[in-house]
C-alpha cells in the first residue's frame, strides 16, 4: 500500500470546501453579494497554482544540481497540473468578473498578466516537446522553467500593484485581508488552498507514475 492518507484528506477537504463554500455563512457586501463564495474557488485556485509552480521550479533546480531524471518528471508534471489550475482560475475569475464588473474579460493588468503567465508555461510545454533526447530535454527545459518562474512572479504579483487594477491590493484598492475577510471565510479558504494543492499533487503523481512505467517498459523493449 502506498501512503494514501493524504489522498483521503484531499477528498475530505475538497468535499468540505464545496459544501461549506455553497451553504456556509458569508459576510454580506454590496455588489459582491453571494459571489464572494467564488473566493474559495478562484482565489484559492490561483494560490494553489503559484505553490505548484514554485514546487516545479524547486524540482528543476534540484535536477540541475543532481541530474536525476526523476526530478525533471516531477517538475514537468507539477507544472502541467499548475497550468490546469491556472486555466480553471481564469474561467472562475471570468464568471465572477461577469457578475461584479459586468464584463467577462475587463481590460485589467492582472487578467492580462495571468494570460501571459499561462502563455509562458504553454511555451514551456512546447519547448519540452521539441527535444527527442531525455537528458537534453530535461536540462534545457529546467533552465527555462527557472527563468519562467522568475518572470512569472513579477507579472502576476508585482506589476499589477504598480498600476490601476480592479483587483484588490492594487491601484489604491485595499487588500483582501483588511476588512472583508472574516473568520467564516478563513475557515473555508485556507482548507481550500491546501485541498487544491493536494489535488494537484495527486494528478501529478498519477502522471509521473504512468511516465515511469512507460520508461521501464521502453527500456525492457530495447533490451
Amino acid at each position: 500500500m502506498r501512503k494514501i492518507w493524504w489522498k483521503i484528506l484531499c477528498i475530505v477537504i475538497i468535499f468540505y470546501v464545496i459544501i461549506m463554500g455553497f451553504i456556509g455563512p458569508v459576510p454580506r457586501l454590496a455588489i459582491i453579494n453571494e459571489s464572494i463564495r467564488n473566493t474559495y474557488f478562484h482565489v484559492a485556485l490561483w494560490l494553489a497554482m503559484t505553490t505548484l509552480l514554485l514546487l516545479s521550479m524547486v524540482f528543476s533546480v534540484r535536477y540541475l544540481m543532481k541530474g536525476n531524471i526523476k526530478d525533471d518528471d516531477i517538475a514537468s508534471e507539477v507544472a502541467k497540473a499548475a497550468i490546469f489550475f491556472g486555466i480553471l482560475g481564469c474561467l472562475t475569475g471570468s464568471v465572477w468578473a461577469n457578475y461584479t464588473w459586468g464584463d467577462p474579460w475587463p481590460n485589467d493588468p492582472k487578467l492580462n498578466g495571468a494570460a501571459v503567465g499561462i502563455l509562458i508555461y504553454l511555451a514551456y510545454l512546447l519547448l519540452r516537446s521539441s527535444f527527442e533526447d531525455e537528458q537534453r530535454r530535461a536540462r534545457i527545459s529546467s533552465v527555462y522553467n527557472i527563468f519562467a518562474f522568475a518572470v512569472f512572479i513579477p507579472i502576476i504579483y508585482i506589476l499589477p500593484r504598480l498600476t490601476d487594477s480592479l483587483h484588490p491590493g492594487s491601484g489604491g484598492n485595499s487588500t483582501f485581508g483588511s476588512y472583508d475577510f472574516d473568520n467564516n471565510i478563513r475557515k473555508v479558504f485556507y482548507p481550500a488552498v491546501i485541498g487544491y494543492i493536494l489535488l494537484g499533487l495527486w494528478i501529478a503523481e498519477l502522471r509521473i507514475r504512468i511516465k515511469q512505467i512507460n520508461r521501464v517498459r521502453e527500456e525492457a523493449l530495447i533490451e
Partner: protein
Amino acid sequence: MPASRHHITLNEIKTLIWKEVTLEWRQKYALSGMLLYVVSTVFVCYLSFNLRRNQLTPIVWNTLFWIILLFTAVNAIAKSFSQERHGRLLYYYNLCSPQAIVISKIIYNSLVMSVLSGLGFIFYAFVMGNPIQDNGLFSICILLASIGFASVLTLIAGIASKADNSATLMAVLSFPIILPMLLMTIRLAKNAMDGLDWSVSTDEITTLLSIDLIVITLSYLLFPYLWRS
C-alpha cells in the same frame, strides 16, 4: 556542478566582446541585414499609414515604434548562438568559462541593439514625424530597452538554439517573457513624449532596471547548465 575552470576576468570578457565585433565586421551582411530589416519595416509601416499620416495618434506612433524594435531585437539576437558552428562552440568551451561567454554576449548584444534602435529611431522619426518633447528621456528609454531586450533574449536564444525549430521557438518563448519589459518601456516612452517631469518616470526606470538585474543574474547562473548540453 559546472565547475568553472577558472574565475572569469574582465580581460576574458573584453577579448570575447572583441571577438564578436571582429566576427561581425568580417561578415558584414549580418549587421547590414538587420539594419536593412529595420529600415524596410519602418518603411512598410510608413507606406501603410501613408494615407492617414496626420491621424497617427501619439499612442499609435509609440506602440508601433516599440513593436518594430521588438521584432528587430528578436531577429537580431536569435542568431547570436545559431550563427556559430558546433565545433567552434566546443573550442570556446575549452578556452573560457561559460559565465564570461554569456556576459560578453549580453554586452555585445546590448551594443548592437543600441546601434540598431538608435538608427531605427532616427529613420522612424524622419519618415513618421517626431512628436517627442523630451528627447533626452526618450534616448535613456531606448538605451534601457536595448539592454533589457538583449539580456532577456540572449538566454532565450541560447535555449532556442538547442532545439530544432529554433525560429518559432524563439518567438514563442521570448514574447510572453519580454512583455512586462515592453509594457514598462512603452509607458516610459509615453512619459518622454508628453514631456513629463523626470520624477514621474522614476518608478518605470527602477522597475526596468530591476527586471534587467534579475534577468542578467539568472542568465549568469543558468547559462553554464545550458552550455553543457
